[in-house]
Structures are given as structure tokens and as C-alpha cells.
């Protein structure tokens, strides 16, 4: 089997991989290879034909393919090498990759690797949905592929379980295509998707959203004929008296995204239970030296703009690592405390300014995020609305944390 050498290999040609490649190239690295399993670059953005992408990065509302194209154009004009229609079969801790394509098998020895594989959708099986196994049950993203890329009508009477962003987007999309979206049901007491999507995709089209309500059974032996729904109590147990049958021929699931870390796990990268992504330092380096992670494979983002921004940093970090410009200073752990679900990076050097990304566990109003080293406050951010669906970022200045022992992040109401 042929073996080639590369300075930097990026796995995944979606928004994270593209931005990482572009920034690494701009930092002066020339020997870069981006591996993409699809025919074209852009990743999942290619099927996201709605607008609203790029408000932060480009100050305008682009569609997914438009947003992707800006990076693809830059990627191509910089002359970065891409290997499309190629899948990475394995990654070792010494950064050796085995890849496969129609052209054959190839081993690649990389000096640095950036993981940018994105995420997958949680399925009916993963949420142990009882009932029959008929046709007409799709994850929202798969449905979006059929509808937007393959011109296929997936159903006429649609129920959506889960109020994740893709589910909300698909509620509007299917309505526009003439289907009847009966309702969106959400197990949690608050929507999982962005507030703007609840407004623009559901409220504007009179699609009801039922919170603290879930689907408890699928019906129909062949094609789906309906679902049993019911409200849940605080412990997410079904309230039997509220059980009702909702006829439908299609159920779309928007019940969560899972970082696609099988390659990372096989390489021995340590994952964080709270994010299902790698544990990283402020260079976004994982537990394995020279292996970096960014985008939705690191933690699920709500805005692609943040993915691109994060990936750009990772591209720069990888170059710094390759040029031996990073020092292995004592790491300061960053720990989520009260009302914080996770905070990332999980450890920092304290030598440079850093932006922490975090999510809260529950919706809150008029609260502040506080970062403390022991009793000493090192950063604070006041927010009017805090919501688990919306990632919060807070800057911490190096001068405040030089000699910090441990940073604790919490919410103060």
C-alpha cells in the first residue's frame, strides 16, 4: 500500500474543515490535505438551503450553500489540496491515516491532524421509541437531504418530535411544499432550537409547538399511521391522562446531534461526557499531541459562524504546533459549576487571551456568567437571556489568569 506524508491533514470538508484549511494556509503552511467523503465540499451546508447563515461573519443572511461557497472559493484560490470522495477508515495515535477511495487505498503519515468530521443525528433507536417499525420515520436531516437535494416528497401529514433547529427548519420547509405539519412536540419544557427559528419557522406558519410533550408510541405496521403523544411531568414520565393519538404518515426526529467521534476514539482521543467531543486545551489540541478538533465534532454549535471562527483558530494552532511555537506550559483546568452544562476548552495555558464557549443547563434571565480563580473573579459577562440552545462565549484575558490554579465557571442570578 502506498504511503504519503503530509504536514497537516484535515478530516472533513464542511465549514469547520474548510475554515481550518484556509487559516492554516494563510499562516504560511503549504503542505495541507483536506479529505472529504462527498463529491463536493461544503458538508451539511449543501442541504441547508434556508437563509440566516453568515450574519456574524459576513454581516448578511446567506443560504447554506452560499455560505459554504465563500469558503470553498477561498480554499480553491489558495490552491489547497482536497481529496474528495475519500473516506478515512482509521486514524492512529501516531497520526497515520488509512483512507479509501475509488482510486484505491492509501496510508497517510501526517505531522498534524485536524478532526472536523461533524456530527450525526440521534435516531428513533437511540431514544428507544416504542411501537412498530413502519416506513415514514426519518431523522430531520435525512429528510432534508431527500427534500432539498433529491426532490423527493417524504410525506403529507407530518409530526415532528424534538424542537432542534433542523426540525424547526423542516417544519417550515414541508409547509411551504404543501405538506401539513400537525405539530412539533418537545420533551423538555423549553425549545431546543434557536428562538429566531421558533418564531420564523413555527409561529409565522401557525404550527403548534407542544412543550413537555413527547411521542410515546409509533403506529402502523407498514407505513406510519400515527403516533401516541402525551405530556410529561418534571421527571419526564408520561402523564397517562394526557395520552392522545395524532394521525400522521411521517414522523421527523430532531432529537439531538452526536459528534461523530468514532475515528477519534479509535485513535485514543479522550472524550468529554458533557460534549461527546474531545477534551481540548486552548489550542484545541486533544489528548493526543498533534491531533486537533473543531466544529461540531468537538461540540455541537448552533451557529455556523462560530464553527468557522473556532476552526480558523484551530488552523492557526496547528501551524504553530508544526512550527514548534507552542510551549507545553502547565495547564489550568476550566471547570463548569452551577448551571453550566459544559465549558470549552477544558484546560488553558494562561499565557494568552482565550474565549470560553459554554452552555447553560436551563433558561434564565438577567444573569451573569462568572469565571473565577478561587475567590478571584477573572471575567464576567452580563446577559438578559440565557438559554441552553444558545452557546455563550466569554473572553478571558491572559493578564488575569497568568498564575491561576483552576478556573470555575458559573451563573450568578
Amino acid at each position: 500500500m502506498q504511503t504519503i506524508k503530509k504536514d497537516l491533514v484535515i478530516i472533513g470538508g464542511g465549514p469547520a474543515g474548510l475554515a481550518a484549511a484556509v487559516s492554516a494556509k494563510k499562516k504560511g503552511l503549504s503542505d495541507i490535505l483536506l479529505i472529504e467523503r462527498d463529491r463536493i465540499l461544503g458538508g451539511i451546508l449543501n442541504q441547508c438551503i434556508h437563509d440566516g447563515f453568515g450574519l456574524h461573519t459576513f454581516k448578511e443572511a446567506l443560504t447554506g450553500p452560499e455560505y459554504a461557497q465563500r469558503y470553498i472559493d477561498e480554499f480553491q484560490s489558495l490552491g489547497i489540496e482536497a481529496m474528495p470522495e475519500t473516506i478515512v477508515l482509521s486514524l492512529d495515535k501516531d497520526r497515520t491515516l488509512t483512507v479509501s477511495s475509488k482510486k484505491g487505498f492509501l496510508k497517510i503519515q501526517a505531522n498534524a491532524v485536524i478532526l472536523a468530521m461533524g456530527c450525526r443525528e440521534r435516531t428513533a433507536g437511540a431514544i428507544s421509541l416504542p411501537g412498530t417499525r413502519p416506513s415514514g420515520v426519518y431523522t430531520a436531516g435525512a429528510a432534508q437531504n431527500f427534500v432539498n437535494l433529491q426532490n423527493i416528497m417524504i410525506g403529507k401529514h407530518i409530526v415532528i418530535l424534538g424542537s432542534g433547529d433542523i426540525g424547526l427548519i423542516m417544519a417550515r420547509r414541508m409547509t411551504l411544499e404543501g405538506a401539513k405539519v400537525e405539530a412539533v412536540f418537545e420533551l423538555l419544557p423549553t425549545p431546543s432550537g434557536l428562538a429566531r427559528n421558533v418564531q420564523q419557522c413555527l409561529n409565522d406558519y401557525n404550527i403548534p409547538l407542544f412543550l413537555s410533550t413527547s411521542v410515546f408510541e409509533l403506529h402502523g405496521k407498514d407505513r406510519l399511521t400515527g403516533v401516541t403523544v402525551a405530556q410529561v411531568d418534571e421527571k419526564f414520565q408520561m402523564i397517562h391522562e394526557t395520552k392522545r393519538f395524532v394521525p400522521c404518515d411521517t414522523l421527523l426526529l430532531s432529537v439531538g446531534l452526536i459528534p461523530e467521534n468514532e475515528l477519534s476514539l479509535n485513535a485514543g482521543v479522550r472524550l468529554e461526557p458533557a460534549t461527546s467531543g474531545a477534551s481540548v486545551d486552548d489550542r484545541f489540541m486533544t489528548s493526543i499531541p498533534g491531533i486537533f478538533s473543531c466544529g461540531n465534532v468537538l461540540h455541537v454549535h448552533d451557529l455556523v459562524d462560530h464553527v468557522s471562527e473556532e476552526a480558523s483558530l484551530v488552523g492557526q494552532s496547528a501551524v504553530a504546533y508544526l512550527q514548534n511555537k507552542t510551549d507545553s506550559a502547565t495547564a489550568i483546568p476550566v471547570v463548569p459549576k452551577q448551571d453550566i452544562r459544559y465549558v470549552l476548552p477544558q484546560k488553558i495555558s494562561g499565557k494568552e487571551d482565550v474565549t470560553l464557549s459554554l452552555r447553560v443547563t436551563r433558561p434564565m434571565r438577567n444573569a451573569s456568567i462568572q469565571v473565577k480563580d478561587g475567590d478571584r473573579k477573572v471575567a464576567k459577562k452580563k446577559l438578559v437571556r440565557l438559554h441552553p440552545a444558545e452557546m455563550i462565549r466569554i473572553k478571558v484575558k491572559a493578564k488575569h489568569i497568568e498564575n491561576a490554579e483552576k478556573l470555575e465557571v458559573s451563573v450568578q442570578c
Partner: protein
Amino acid sequence: MENQYDVIIIGAGVVGNAIARELSKTCVSVAVIEKELDVSMGTSSRNSGVIHSGIHYKPGTLRASLNVLGNSLMADLCQDLKVKIDYIGKLTVAQDEEEVKSLYMLKDQGEANGVPGLEILDPDAMEKIQPNVGGIKALHSPSTGIICPYSLTIALAENAHANGCRFYLGHEVTSIKKTGHGFEIEAGKKKLTSRVLINSAGLYSAEICRMLGINNYQIYPCRGEYLILDKRLKGALNLLVYPAPHTGKAGLGIHLTNTVSGNILIGPSNEYQEDPEDYACTADIMAQLRREGHVLLPELKTADFIRSFSGLRPKQTPPEIGGFKDFVIESREDVKGFINLVGIESPGLTSSPAIALMVRDMVEKLLPLTPKTGFNGTRSGMTNHFHELSNEEKADLVAENPDYGEVVCRCEQITRKEVLDAIENPLGVKTINSIKYRSRAMMGRCQGGFCLPRIVRILEKDFGYRPEDYLLKNRSSPLFFGKMRQDTP
């Protein structure tokens, strides 16, 4: 002549197909009639996939003798048919002295049945075979194996088909008439005749009997639910571990089962029910299986449950009696030419090659069976999936056929070539599930979220499918409702 056969078999499960393949070694003409669009759509694909040793059945019963013979025939059969089988062995574990007694009883019974290599182990020896297994004693049966049950059933059918057996899939038998020479069978919109008729209709076997005026059989469907675990946990179990049996139960108790694909199963439950096609999974049982799973496998995480399924045991005993009744395998005197198989539940999968031999002998008493020259009992293709090969073997195959280089199903690493082979299967089955069962695409942790859209595209581009042509499993299970917009010219 068209639609006239020496032998017709009703039911394309593992037993029907094993009989079909056995008879395709001879010069008689054989057809299999199946109401579903594919083979292996009932009990044959919905079980633990265990090749039992034969310790559980009373000496002198058909279940005992056919199980032990079937087990010994399975190794060569699987080699010929390129079906993966792994004789990993089984521990039946006793938790107290009462259960230890039942282990000795099982050992004596197994030895009387001719089961090889049985041994009672103390905790030290148990620990060596399977760490953290618990219990005070265990019976080790080394001849217990695992197999993919639908792979075997499909392989038997394809090999029978390659040797001249005709399959009528999607043809439900609606009436049977006994004539002077044999039988007239209405199935789908076809009228077929045969000299010998074999009933291997599983859950519907009693119904087939009734069509011929045989009213003394009754099938009580007994559902078993399973959960399928992520391959991440592969290696947690070295062999099968069952609890010691308790009398009166309809199954062998909830346990973990390794599969040849590397997923572990939790199950099965036991619930009698009316409907012979109700494969629903229930909230209560799923919760119970999750609970027991966490006890049996402490490293199990919630994210490890990737799918649930259920199967139905065609039991002859009603719920108030429970337990097991012996297989009925009979050549009817009152309906000459009718070979009747009723209540082939566990260990039907293991017994299938032995049942086929037994039925063959019954057919021979009715029809002369001369061996067919040119019978080819081996199936082409690979026993292993592409992803199970070494990198060198993979590289060679990709060089030979670039379609091996393209991975369509990311989770199971199933290649385009394997998907194309499944689409172009010899039986001509065209459902999404037929592709799934043959290739393993869509069986991984993302459950087709990634590869179903790709497979749909392959079917459109390379096979001319229109949106309305995609069926999940039968004609009433369309995937789609046509195009969204008409194509612009």
C-alpha cells in the same frame, strides 16, 4: 410446465429454504411460495441467532435429535454457503444450589442427546472463560455457536434458486385444494399445482392446515423483544452467558447474546399475543431490557442502545400452559402428499439442516428422488464483509473493482460494491430492507441517517427508481410520495 411443480413449499423462512435447497440436489421441480416480498421476513430473522448445542430438550424428542444433528451439520453448510458462524460456546450459570441441580440435570440430558464436550465449571474456571460472570457454578457447552440468522436464510434461498428452485415472493396462499394427483394452490394471482405440498409457514402453519381441513393445530404467537447494542461493546462477552433455566417459562430468559456482526443483543422477553404480525416493541419491555442490560453489562451507556426489534415464537402451547411442545413434522396419511411442519420455534434455526434431511426422506417415500448432476452447493461471494478484511486484501479488491473503494454506509463501513450486490440479489428482491439484510448498510449506529439518502440516490441513478418505487418492506410501506416538484426540462 409453467406453474406445475413436483414439490411446493409454503414459507420462505430458514426451514422452508433449507428444505428447498436439500430438494434442489435432486431432479424434482421445486417452488417456494412466500407472502412477503423477501425471504426471512418472519421468525427466521427475528431471533437471537444462536446455534444451540441441544442441552435443553428431552432425549427422544425431535427438538433434541434435530438440534444436535443440525448443530453438527451447520459448520459445513455455512462454509459452503459463505455464511459466517462462530462456535463461541455458552455458559449456563447457576446462582444457588437449587440451580446447580438443574445444571447437572441439563448436563445429563445434553449427554443423552449426544451434545459433545459438556463440563460443569467452578468459579475459577468460569472466571478464566468469562471474567466477572458471577454465579457459583456453570455448565459450559462448547458446541454452542452464533450466526446471522437472515444471512443463513437468504444464503439457503439463493443457493436453492441457483440450483433451479423457483421462488414466488409476495404471493400469499389463499386456498389449497387437494386433487387426485396432488394439490392446487392459489397464491397471489397465481394458480400453482404440486404433487407434494410442504407446510413450513411458521406462524401461519396452523392456518395452512385449516385450508386442508386439518383443525387440530393452533399457533400462539409469543413475542420476544430485543435491544441491539453499539459495536463499541464488542469484546465485553467472550461467549454466551445464560441464566439457569426455570420450568414453565416460554423462553430461555433474558440474557446478552453476541452476534457475528459484533453487536450485543439484550433479550428476549416473553409475551403471548393474538396478532401473528405484531412486531411492535413496548415501552415496558424496553425499559425492563434497559434495566437488565445495565445489570448484566455495567459498562453499558444509554447511547449504546441503537435499535430495538421483536420476533414471534410460533408456540403450540397457550399462555396458561406455557413451556415447550415438540416440533410437529409429519407426512399426513389422511391428506396424502402433505408434509406438515407446525410449531418450529427454538431450536428451529439450529435444526433447519436436519429438518431438511428428515423432510427429504418423507418426500422420497412419495416421489422418486434421483440426485441431480450439476448441483452446486457452494455460493459465490465472500463470507466476510469488506471491512473485515486486512488492509492488503482490501487494497487488492479496490484495485480489482473501484466500487469497493467507496464507502456508502459509514457506521458499518459497507462499500458501494456490497450495496450494488445487495440491490442486484439473485432473488430479485427490491425493498430497502432487502438491501439492509444483505449488505448490513443502515444497520449501524446512525440507522441509515447517513447512507439511506445515498442508497436512494444509487437506486435512482443506476436503477431508474422513481420516488414511488421505494418500498421499505412490502407494497404498503412506501418510503416517499412522489416528486416534490416536476423536473423542468
